[in-house]
């Protein structure tokens, strides 16, 4: 890790050296600085950065210029002015690649662009030199900040440093899962109706296993979710363990209104049928089975069959974990599901600033039935308010839990006061 950052930082030093050396050879040279670092985080994944850098590959190979991949992700390309057109088309390609990023909302033809800055070495040499120096300083301070943070957070697990799951580790995880006591890893979170500023009214509660806690308990140095397919397989195992836990006769969980997140293949297993045996006939209608969209589209025929089976048994289906973006492609009606759960993200609030976008979002929600939508991961009041302004009434998340706890506390206080009063009388 330390080595990698040192190497990255030295790209800034190399750039500075290179620019200094060009002082005597400014003629016929230009540079372009591509501000990848200013893109939205979603657009700055490693693969995007690699693709962006690759755009210049042929130019580098044909000795048209020199590319510097800076430690913040920015690209600096210094090239012979004669290949300016080729460089421009590389930039057009890049712009196309990141077209949906707000940074690129500027008009392409305009001189001033937030996405890239152009330099003519003859005209702007000093500006470029200054820029290179600033980049070195920034990189150095970033490095030292990183080192500091590392010192302070030594005990905080860093996702990046965790190993991805491999088949061999998966086997170990499965063995561990078979023995682990899941009951203390199962969390409960309420889905509540919230209207206006009134306290949350619990409708049902989701039972789930906290994957982070599970990981810390059984295999702390492994990133369980990075290999998506192996992770999905692990959740198959997890599902069966959770179901058999819920099916224990001494557990009264099944008497209440709950939702459980399960894989589609789990719905056809013996464990699910045993779970179903333990669910009282009248309660089934209030049990919600939450399914992942990935799982649904993995095999639509299998989904169709499982959906019909659980509907026949009396359960309801909620499509879980949708982003607002995903909602454009997932329609409740088409999939024959009963509910949808969208995860709150700040991008939703951003959309609400624009009346046109708000209308689009509203139409999308309405099409799916406002009363059938849960807004999940609401950790702030802002999330609830944004959801409410869109007409959503069902919410889930930390903020909802806090509101619920608050309300219960108030009720208890209320009760005590009442008793106090009666005592006085």
């Amino acid at each position, binding site marked *: 890790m330390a080595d990698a950052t040192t190497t990255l930082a030295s790209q800034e030093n190399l750039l500075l050296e290179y620019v200094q050396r060009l002082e005597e050879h400014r003629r016929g040279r230009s540079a372009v600085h591509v501000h990848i670092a200013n893109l939205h985080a979603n657009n700055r994944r490693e693969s995007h950065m690699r693709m962006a850098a690759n755009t210049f590959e042929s130019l580098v190979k044909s000795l048209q210029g020199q590319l510097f991949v800076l430690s913040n992700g920015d690209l600096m390309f210094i090239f012979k002015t004669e290949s300016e057109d080729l460089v421009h088309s590389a930039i057009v390609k890049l712009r196309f690649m990141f077209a949906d990023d707000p940074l690129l909302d500027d008009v392409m033809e305009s001189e001033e662009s937030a996405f890239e800055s152009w330099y003519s070495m003859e005209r702007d040499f000093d500006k470029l030199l200054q820029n290179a120096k600033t980049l070195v300083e920034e990189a150095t301070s970033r490095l030292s900040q990183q080192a500091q943070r590392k010192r302070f957070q030594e005990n905080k697990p860093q996702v990046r440093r965790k190993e991805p799951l491999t*088949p061999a580790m998966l086997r170990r995880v499965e063995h561990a899962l078979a023995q682990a006591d899941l009951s203390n890893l199962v969390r409960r979170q309420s889905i509540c109706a919230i209207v206006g500023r009134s306290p949350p009214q619990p409708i049902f509660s989701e039972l789930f296993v906290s994957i982070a806690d599970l990981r810390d308990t059984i295999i702390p140095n492994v990133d369980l979710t990075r290999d998506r397919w192996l992770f999905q397989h692990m959740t198959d195992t997890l599902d069966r363990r959770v179901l058999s836990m819920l099916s224990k006769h001494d557990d009264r969980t099944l008497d209440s209104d709950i939702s459980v997140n399960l894989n589609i293949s789990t719905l056809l297993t013996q464990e699910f049928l045993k779970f179903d045996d333990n669910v009282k006939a009248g309660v089934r209608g209030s049990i919600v089975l939450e399914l992942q969209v990935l799982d649904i589209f993995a095999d639509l025929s299998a989904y169709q069959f499982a959906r*019909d089976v659980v509907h026949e048994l009396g359960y309801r289906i909620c499509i879980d974990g949708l982003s607002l973006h995903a909602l454009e*492609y997932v329609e409740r009606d088409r999939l024959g599901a009963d509910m949808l759960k969208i995860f709150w993200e700040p991008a939703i609030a951003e959309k609400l600033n624009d009346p046109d976008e708000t209308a689009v979002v509203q139409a999308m929600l309405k099409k799916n039935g406002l009363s059938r939508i849960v807004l999940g991961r609401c950790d702030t009041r802002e999330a609830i308010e944004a959801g409410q302004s869109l007409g959503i009434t069902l919410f889930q998340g930390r903020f909802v839990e806090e509101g619920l706890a608050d309300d219960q506390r108030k009720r208890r206080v209320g009760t005590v006061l009442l008793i106090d009063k009666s005592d006085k009388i």
Partner: protein
Amino acid sequence: MKGPTNKLPPSAKEMFTTAAVVTPESLLLDVVERLGRIRHGWVAAQVHLSQLKPQNRQEAHLRIAMRMFDPLVSGYRCQVFLMTDSDIIIIGRDVPMVDLDSAVFRLRALFDKDPLTYTEGEDGHDPFATFYHLEDDYDYFLQEAERLRAVVEARKRNPNLQAKPEPKPLNSELLIGIMAALNDVDMLKYLQRQAAIQVVSSNHARVILQEYFLSMQDLRRDVAPDVDLFTNRWLFLHFTQGADRRSLVALQNVVKVSKPPVISLNLNLSTLETPEFAAFEKGLLPGQTLNIEVQLIDVFADLKGFFKTRDALRAKGYKVILDGMMPSTLHFTDISKLGMDYIKVMWSPELIDPHHPTKGREPKDIIAELGPMKFILTRCDSEASIRWGLSMGILAYQGHLIDTMVTLTTMAACPDQANCTAQQCSSRRNAAGGAGRLGCTNFAGLDSFPEISLDLLTKRISKKA
């Protein structure tokens, strides 16, 4: 709690291996024989699940099917038997016919995508289920029970008909060994290619792409001979990621030699970020371009990532194809929003069944809406498939029938045609490279993208018929 139906009875295969005498068939016959004297009020139903398509009668399906009769077991003490061939037989006394009927009806609804539930029997009989009032139909029912047992007994006696040992289901333990074995095989052996054509005039078609793919069955035979590689979806997908990378390495030389202008590859999206893919791209000859075929699951596993990748591929001039759709699954999402260059839809014969539930309506509308030019009908193995495709306005086709057309055209134009049979030519054409192509004396012809005369095919087919 709910009686015997909660557990699947041991399958016949298990019984053979333990050399047990008891089979579900012998149990059934026993019960039926005892009913001979007390037929009054007894009813039975036989649900012919054995006639479902194999993909619809997996263990999980049968488990659910048995479950549908639980109310009859708890309410009327019915007995339910799962036969070796997957048929289900329910027997009970004083069961209101309406209850028995509604249980069968609910089961039928679950399998409503299978032709068994919507096709009519030749003699007017319902091919999905047969009902017996034992008072009147006892003899027929006894006959059926005897027949079922005789079949199983015969199979037991005939060693050739005995079931082979079941392949082990894939698990993480087995996967470790399989992933290692993958590194030791010569992938070239398993790589195949198949062309897709597009009809360009009333009697001509041209090849629009050459798809390279792994013959998974052949690969499985060598790396996991006793394992069922395919039913565990997630572990299989992990396996394909490894297989993708190894295939790309092997393909690098193949496409340099055979020089297809349009190479279609069915890859995991994650493979596009591997060094193997980068190296493959780098090795492409000038003028060669790629089609990347993606599965819907990969699209929905990371929508944002998919769009980014799609745009990056497009920026390089590649085309993006949505693979693996069925006409019956086209309506689940608005595919037009995914912005694919092509959509591959699988042909299956029940599409032209007059009782097919989605016939003519949704697929046709969706295809028309998206533009038939965007579709490639795959698995075309009959003239009927092409006819159906043409009726939808689809002009691009892929499948064994198309392979035959391409082979016939290749042979017709080959100066050495007298040396080979059509079958030899076809299997050499299908091999991506390596030993599978040996014997051909005209590689240029073998790798050509010929213009195809549709007349040629019609003549051959009618001659065969």
